[in-house]
């Protein structure tokens, strides 16, 4: 026979377990476990994993250049928070877009990003990624510091990754190469195109469409002297 005390004890133990698991899960979910300023080993593992996968793709002698390009581009895009970056690159003009325009833009931006990495594939050959550390900025914002070592260059290239952490998953938000944040640089170009065309988002959409379709850059000139 189980005494009422034992039943109560059992219920209490189970309740306590549930509470503790829930709290632990929530803390992890909210990212509270890692305080700002600390390292985040999981984020470092994420970047190290990406580096390893990139090497496997680039060093695969059985695949053609086209296959490598596709695989590398997919690897980048699948691990990047393209939608968030796309919105970020619109700067202050993000608010002026209708939902349909935003979706148009984000589709184009995804293709644009894929093309970007396809073009730059050659630059990544013979590199090795060495993760050096990480820094938790906030529960959802982590920086991973790394360096790229080239086969034919003495000096490594400093590369820092800004990651978004959500539900224990990581996605790339921005990339800093020798002190230059790429999403910031991209934003400067996009907002400039919009600003120099009287604040019209169409101008950016047209430019992006042209670039995605042609796969080439073009000599952009402001349409009118409204940039005084």
């Amino acid at each position, binding site marked *: 026979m189980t005494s009422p005390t034992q039943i109560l004890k059992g219920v209490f133990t189970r309740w306590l377990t549930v509470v503790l698991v829930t709290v632990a899960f929530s803390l992890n979910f909210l990212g509270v476990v890692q305080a700002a300023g600390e390292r985040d080993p999981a984020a470092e593992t994420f970047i190290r994993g990406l580096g390893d996968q990139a090497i496997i793709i680039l060093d695969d002698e059985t695949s053609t250049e086209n296959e490598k390009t596709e695989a590398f581009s997919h690897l980048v895009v699948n691990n990047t*928070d393209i939608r968030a970056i796309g919105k*970020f690159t619109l700067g202050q003009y993000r608010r002026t877009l209708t939902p349909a325009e935003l979706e148009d833009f984000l589709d184009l931006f995804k293709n644009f990003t894929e093309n970007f990495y396809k073009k730059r594939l050659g630059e990544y050959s013979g590199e090795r990624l060495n993760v050096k550390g990480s820094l938790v900025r906030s529960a959802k914002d982590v*920086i991973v510091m790394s360096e790229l070592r080239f086969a034919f260059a003495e000096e490594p290239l400093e590369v820092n990754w800004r990651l978004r952490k959500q539900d224990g998953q990581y996605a790339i938000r921005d990339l800093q190469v*020798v002190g230059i944040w790429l999403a910031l640089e991209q934003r*400067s170009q996009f907002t400039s195109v919009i600003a120099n065309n009287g*604040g019209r988002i169409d101008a950016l959409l047209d430019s992006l469409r042209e670039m995605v379709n042609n796969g080439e*850059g073009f000599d952009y000139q402001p349409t009118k002297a*409204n*940039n005084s």
Partner: protein
Amino acid sequence: MTLPETGQAMIIQRKKTAFKRLGAGLCLLGALFVAGCSTTNGNPAANDPWQSTNRKFFKVDRTLDKAIIKPIAKGYRNVVPERGRKSIRHFVDNLHAPVVFANDVLQFEPKRAGITLTRFAINSTIGLAGFFDPAKKMGLEPHEEDFGQTLAFYGIPEGPYVYLPILGPLPPRDMVGYVVDVLTNPLVWMGDPAAGYVNKGRVVADGLGDRERAIEVLENLEETSLDFYAGLRNLYRQNRENEIRNGEPQFDDLPDFEDDFEDEDF
């Protein structure tokens, strides 16, 4: 890497009369700077009130670059082997050491000043007049400093963007810095004509080396750019900030990705 300095595709030293002109230009710029601060345009965040003029100059530079400078840089790469180019770079950098040292001191960086001085002593002697860099092998890593960075150290803001033909991006703070660096270089005030020739050679070799190293980076950037001018403007600024921090990582002031309003993704 010289990626954001690439706007300064090639720096050509002007003669003394040019300094006078620059001086006059600076006074004018000072006035414009004040005016520019209050100017608003389509994209105030860009802080580029003279954008249409800047873009014209940028276009001139690109034409010059395509026709003359880039082909010379490519020729330089083809004719001079990598080891030779490296030696020239070491020589040029070594000649610039007095300016770097002065700015290290002005920024209260005794350790970096010591490194610059020791590097200069070692490389000018054992390094055969600076053509080799034995100091680096001894663990004394090279670094750059200029008076524009010193002004930033003392809290002077960069000011509105300015792009000049040949000289590239030179907003007011960096323009003043550039003039001061030119004038404080011992090769300029030594008065010896030989020193003058060496200095001119240094400036040309420096610009050529920068351009040669940036060939691929610039090509890639241009190919993937929607607005090359705006992209370079941002690269210049980010790079200057990085230089001012002496390359020390700083992650405190990053922009937020989350918007202030409703966003289904966050």
